[in-house]
């Protein structure tokens, strides 16, 4: 999005006065909407909207042979597709760079063994374990993609149900998988420690949370902070052009520590009280 000098100055002044162009304060998020179970043949899915930003996250679990170095652990794999629907700039290969940026952030944030109980994804040591394919589709791009993606991932993982399977060894010691005949039997993942991202965009001498597309186009670099429900910082990355002073970085981390847990709790309470009335995209 291209803005004129006047518009940029207006946004800059509004951030200085702590009353942004849509009336929010610097630490306020826009309205969020979340809905799970939107894709029928997935183990879990969620559609999350923050303001104009909209992402669709889908989790599929597949049985694979675990890696030799981690025989008793499952794995998680992220794939992000910046759909051309979100912006014509993403047509063809246009969205690949942004997608790989977000993907590497997610990979880092989920690499710690304390994030998810990866051993629960193991079915038979050395033979079978679940790999979670988390596929993220960016449908609309209205700023603050990192936060939207991470919250969508958390919601989709919360919604994920994985089938209970048993392994039987045949006469020649070959393992065979037996799937429970009752499809309602399955286990859910513990998503308590799954982090979410908070993006601090620097505009002038202040940082704002949940920037809109207009604000992003006059920001000077942003700081993506991964934070858990306990307020533990799991990941920090500076993205985009621009620089941060150590004190403003410290301020941002303190804010993340204060606000992050609230966002986690809000998301989980919304997911828990979600009703069966699903209208998906027709809403």
């Amino acid at each position: 999005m291209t803005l004129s000098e006047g518009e940029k100055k207006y946004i800059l002044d509004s951030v200085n006065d702590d009353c942004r162009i849509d009336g929010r304060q610097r630490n306020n998020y826009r309205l969020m909407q979340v809905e799970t179970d939107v894709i029928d043949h997935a183990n879990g899915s969620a559609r999350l909207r923050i303001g104009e930003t909209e992402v669709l996250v889908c989790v599929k679990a597949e049985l694979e042979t675990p890696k030799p170095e981690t025989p008793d652990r499952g794995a998680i794999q992220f794939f992000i597709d910046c759909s051309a629907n979100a912006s014509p700039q993403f047509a063809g290969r246009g969205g690949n760079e942004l997608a790989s940026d977000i993907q590497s952030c997610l990979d880092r944030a989920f690499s710690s063994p304390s994030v998810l109980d990866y051993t629960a994804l193991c079915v038979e040591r050395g033979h079978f374990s679940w790999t979670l394919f988390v596929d993220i589709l960016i449908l609309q791009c209205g700023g603050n993609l990192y936060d939207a993606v991470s919250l969508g991932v958390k919601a989709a993982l919360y919604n994920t149900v994985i089938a209970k399977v048993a392994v039987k060894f045949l006469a020649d010691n070959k393992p065979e998988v037996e799937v429970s005949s009752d499809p309602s039997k399955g286990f859910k993942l513990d998503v308590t420690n799954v982090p979410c991202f908070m993006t601090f965009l620097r505009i002038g001498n202040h940082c704002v949370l949940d920037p809109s597309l207009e604000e992003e186009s006059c920001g000077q670099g942003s700081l993506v902070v991964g934070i858990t429900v306990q307020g533990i910082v799991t990941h920090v990355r500076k993205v985009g052009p621009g620089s941060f002073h150590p004190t403003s970085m410290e301020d941002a981390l303190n804010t993340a520590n204060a606000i992050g847990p609230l966002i986690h709790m809000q998301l989980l309470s919304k997911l828990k009280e979600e009703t069966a009335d699903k209208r998906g995209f027709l809403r």
Partner: protein
Amino acid sequence: MARTEAFFDTGLRADGRDPSQLRKISCKVGAFKQADGSAYIEQGKTKILATVYGPQEIRGGKSKVLHDRALINCQFSMAVFCTSERRNRPRGDRKTMELNSMLQQTYEAAIRVELFPRSQIDIFVEVLQADGGVASAAINAATLALIDAGVPMKDYVCACSAAMVDDFPFLDLSHLEEIVVGSMVTFACLPRSKQIVLSEMSGRLHLDYLDKVMDAALKGCEDVFHIMDSIVRSQVAHMAAAMG
């Protein structure tokens, strides 16, 4: 008779339809604000999102400029999770490339491209969930998105798939039915002038059946037209009421 049994268990198809019935179509026109036009369509369990940008200045190289008409640029992608088996990539494989060129040729015939020389109209289609009839649902979604964007067209473009099963034409096949029949046709037409803008057939079909299946498919297109027309009209009436 095995094939018929798969279709007719108790005189109805597996999902309870009779042969000439379409699946339930629900749509939302103008689903997204950022695009010039957008539409979301659910045809049975097939869910498709289409957005339209333009007519606008040509992006990229000037070599693509057409001096007498608009350039129609389509991108057809199928989300990696849209089928029950996870796909490796959303676009660039043979199936999506084929659907891409189908879409492009269909709309080059239906949009009044001569009105916008040296400009470009982008049509982006994203399949969120695929359960048969992807090509026809994609065309229906793109038509609604183009109408939402206010791009002048000769008529609605309505598409429907059909197949012959033991002398009976069946309309709007689900994924399960597509697998069972093997051979299927997809037609898109401009319903008021009865012009066919897309005809596609997979598998093989006896020539004697072609007339029958084509008539059935065109009847299906007409049904789709009535559904889409009523949606667009109610949407416009709603907008007009809001404007006072």
